[in-house]
């Protein structure tokens, strides 16, 4: 177990499996020194992965709490630590600490609701934790729509899993889109915000919630699209990304206004975000 008293102190962890999702994204399975999940978490929470001598950074836990065998992290190679992680092999050693942040309210607000997931690119990673949770507790939630877009078909993370598992789940509707036409793609082409408007039934039930994650510009326009479709601001959740060091609201990096993304977020309701300066 992570030392509960000192949240800055990591514990040893180990990679058990690495899957290449796209040209720049891999999904890592991680366990603690005893081969177990490192600590309990809720969907939407994050963990600090570290490689001593290289660095430490915050990642969404992409697996659901219903997966009690390991954590999964889907990581895009963009910086010093992530490139290092991409060069690692199964059985390589890491450090981990967490969990950090406020999760999606999967057992309260979201229960019994129709859920619309809106994701762009690697933004699917934090939502996957919720999606897997909902698929594993399918009867606790209503209709599920997943709108997921990427630059190209090759950039869609979890594509195999989506085809083999998500699409087969009862009352789950998958809507994939890519930015530009390409050979071999017979699905939708276009940006996510426009696609939501094409897809979504304006007369959908009142008991519905949207969960958005993706590049800031996609979040911004998707939000507008959802509001046009009649979603109220309190029916929309998103999850933010800021640079973090401590994870416990002290180091001063991740604030948006007076809120700390590491402890008040990363999950925010749209009406909560509206109260804050848009510096994220």
């Amino acid at each position, binding site marked *: 177990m992570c030392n509960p008293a000192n949240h800055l102190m990591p514990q040893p962890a180990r990679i058990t499996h690495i899957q290449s999702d796209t040209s720049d994204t891999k999904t890592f399975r991680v366990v603690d020194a005893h081969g177990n999940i490192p600590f309990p978490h809720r969907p939407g929470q994050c963990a600090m992965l570290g490689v001593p001598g*290289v660095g430490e950074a915050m990642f969404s836990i992409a697996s659901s709490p219903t997966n009690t065998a390991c954590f999964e992290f889907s990581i895009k190679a963009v910086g010093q630590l992530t490139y290092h992680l991409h060069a690692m092999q199964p059985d390589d*050693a890491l450090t981990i600490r967490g969990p950090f942040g406020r999760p999606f309210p999967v057992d309260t607000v979201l229960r019994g609701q129709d859920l619309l997931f809106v994701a762009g690119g690697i933004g699917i990673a934090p939502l996957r934790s919720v999606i897997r949770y909902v698929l594993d507790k399918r009867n606790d939630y209503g209709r599920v729509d997943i709108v997921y877009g990427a630059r190209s078909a090759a950039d869609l993370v979890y594509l195999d899993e989506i085809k083999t598992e998500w699409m087969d789940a009862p009352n789950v509707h998958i809507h994939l889109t890519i930015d530009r036409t390409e050979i071999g793609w017979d699905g939708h082409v276009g940006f996510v915000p426009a696609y939501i408007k094409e897809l979504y039934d304006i007369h959908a039930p009142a008991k519905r919630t949207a969960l958005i994650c993706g590049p800031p510009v996609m979040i911004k326009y998707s939000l507008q699209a959802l509001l046009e479709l009649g979603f109220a601001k309190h029916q929309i959740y998103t999850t933010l990304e800021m640079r973090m060091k401590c994870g416990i609201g002290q180091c001063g990096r991740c604030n948006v206004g007076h809120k700390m993304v590491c402890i008040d977020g990363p999950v925010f309701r749209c009406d909560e975000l509206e109260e804050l300066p848009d510096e994220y």
Partner: protein
Amino acid sequence: MQLFDAIAKVMPLFVPLEDERGVYFAQWEPGATPLQSVALNASDFAPRKTALSPKGFFLPMVEHLYSSHFSQTKHGGTWQITPAATPNAPFAVLGVRSCDAAGLELLDEVFLAESIDIPYQARRTAAHIITVPCTKRCATCFCDVFGIDPTQPGGDVTLHFDNDTQRMPDDPNRQITDDMLRLQAHTPKGEALLKIQANKLIHSTENQILQTDSSSSESIGENHFNEAANNSTKTFHPPVNQKAASILADFEARFFGGDNPVITGTDATALFHSPAWDTLYLTCVACGTCAFLCPTCQCYDINNETAHCHRHWDTCLNASFTQMAHGNPRPTKKERFRQRFMHKLVYFRQRYGALASNQYSCVGCGRCVEFCPAGINPVDVARELYAVHAATSPSEATHV
């Protein structure tokens, strides 16, 4: 000084000492140096303002958190994490000013409230803060603007100077001796310090008094103490910095006063978008000196880029502070400057206002004003923000 020596026998004692760099807290060597030349002014008894605040006793400039050692296992290898020892040896810091004592209380909101920082908590528990009232104002001071009384400092114990001018003529060359000092405890830890020290501290002078806030006895000693305190207040109370006080009062009334005891989200967002920032930041050179000297700046970095993980002071004025691989939410100096002062004047109060005794993240110690190469002053920033938003509602002002 018997007082200093007595404390130093029991635990390391740090006092403001002057060296070629300036005045810094340094460990007191028993019997080494005469008091008046190093720690406290002789002509008017006041603590020397140290170049660095006592923040570093609790959040050290550089602090070892843990070390990682790689060892082979049957699975390939693992990291063994060895935490740094928790610092819990008692120590005392004497000569802390009102402003710096208040600064520590603000840091407590960050490090001891929502989430506990273990090393900070250990050091706060181990520390005995001995404050000294200020009797004169530095040119850059404005603590009273934030409701801090420079003559009534907090901490665990306050060291008062007996201002009996008949017995003690106002001679700048006079020697300060133990019988001129009075100790007043504010906390159980302070009382314990006085009890432990009582025999060693006090020699049989009738004016020597150990005073505690919680004492209900009406001894001659207490009366004498109160008299001395009152006398001290009458004689030495430094004048309030009226100009700065009125600026902050305007700012306070406009944004935190009236019907809304807390700033509204609309007002906070409007201040964030204030056109005042467009010019305020221009003179800042983003050197970070202000944050380095600030008794309330909390921000730190954690460096894992060696096997020995350290944390060290950092500042929101650094471009790398919020830099991520994909971009930076505060891309220019303007956003970083705005972050610093929005935190000082708005965010801190929004977040901790209900808890903190001082409601801004500034205690008016004046160090940043003294050392800023561009002469930037937090009170000026408050004045400019007020000037832009005073007459109009903030939402209107943003469209000016």
